[in-house]
């Protein structure tokens, strides 16, 4: 098996076995969404109108929680150095770890979103497109997030710094994600252009994220 898949499998095993990162992200997502109707009041029309936006923003914040740990545990226990000289390019190491993050955080969050949509009176016809856009958009969260995780690796209490660095990069994903959903729901608007741009953003981050993250990791290991 290639080193890439070996590492991917190890990271998924660790994430499932330790469980903390997935559990925290899902729990945080649930709590935030459950609190929103309490804060906004029981106006069902208002809630269903802003539901896609709220679900997307809360998803971005939830995925930030586990992002900081992407390289941190490996850095602390010395594995990262060994991965770096293992003969596999650091870019691939970063890509494997970002992919593992997407599989263990992005996908569970995207699948939880429609369930939480019930709490916000999400329009029944929006469930399908919501999951679809989130599955297409969340890779960008993990792969762009890898850059921030690598940059803040040695920073004390780097979590907040990570959020400041990375959240602005998520703006395009957020805009086109919401645009695609409203395109599918509203008459006279189109779903596909926004959805394709959203997918393009994810594909772009798939390439650029690991390159930038690896460059940052090289500095951190110095």
């Amino acid at each position, binding site marked *: 098996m290639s*080193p890439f898949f070996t590492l991917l499998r190890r990271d998924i095993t660790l994430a499932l076995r330790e469980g903390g990162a997935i559990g925290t992200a899902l729990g945080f997502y649930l709590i935030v969404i459950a609190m929103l109707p309490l804060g906004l009041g029981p106006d069902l029309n208002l809630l269903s109108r802003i539901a896609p936006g709220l679900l997307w923003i809360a998803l971005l914040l939830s995925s930030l929680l586990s992002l900081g740990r992407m390289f941190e545990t490996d850095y602390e226990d010395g594995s990262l150095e*060994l991965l*770096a000289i293992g*003969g596999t390019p650091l870019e691939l190491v970063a890509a494997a770890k970002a992919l593992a993050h997407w599989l263990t955080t992005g996908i569970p969050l995207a699948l939880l979103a429609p369930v939480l949509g019930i709490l916000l009176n999400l329009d029944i016809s929006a469930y399908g497109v919501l999951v679809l856009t989130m599955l297409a958009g969340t890779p960008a969260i993990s792969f762009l997030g890898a850059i921030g995780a690598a940059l803040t690796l040695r920073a004390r209490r780097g979590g907040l710094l990570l959020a400041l660095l990375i959240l602005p990069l998520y703006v395009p994903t957020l805009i086109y994600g919401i645009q695609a959903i409203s395109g599918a729901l509203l008459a006279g608007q189109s779903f596909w252009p926004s959805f394709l741009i959203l997918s393009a953003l994810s594909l772009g981050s798939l390439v650029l994220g690991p390159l930038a993250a690896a460059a940052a990791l090289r500095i951190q290991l*110095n």
Partner: protein
Amino acid sequence: MHLAAEKLSIRRGNRLVIDGLSFTAKSGEALLLTGPNGAGKTTLLRAIAGFLALESGEIGLEGGDPEREIGEQSHFVGHANGIKSSLTVGENLEFWCDYLDSSTTRTTRRDRVFDALERLRLSALEDIPAAYLSAGQKRRLGLGRLIIANRPLWLLDEPTVSLDTASVELLAGIVKDHLASSGIVLAATHIPLGLEGARELHLTGLSNTPRLKESGFNTGLPSVEQPRQGRE
């Protein structure tokens, strides 16, 4: 195969820790790095592994694979063991076996992990999560990488930390086997590993001045070549 370093200078922060150091190490040869704390032993090993940029000078592994960095042809044992506490002892070794040598098949991996566990006297702990190991056992597990994947150059930074006397002998045996199969070992250690004929490279550490100084290191021992002398 031999490792040759020529006129190495390495800067840490504002300080030249290593200045104009040259040495060589041939196949089957161990080079012990000695010197007080802060003399640059770790710095030198990390620079050879490729983690630190060189200020000046060159390191080359002649006779090695020219396509690959020196770090990729070496095992680096640092202060941390690189083991995952929620994986079992066996899984930790299996991971490094697969990662470091992608040509391993399921059966060869099984054999190698089995051999390594025997050798490290960890067989009884194979299915126990690494979190439950003692510091010395974790260290031994970390050293398992040396056995499980074959690499010509070993860079050992204080490999004996938290090992008991029996385990130090175990490590010495592993190192000797590696030397016998014409590997190269560079080890920074305060405890003699009982290696006969190992050469010593004494680092003294340098002044705190950020300026370059002429030959600020002490090559003291005759076994270490002075800069610009002929190489084998």
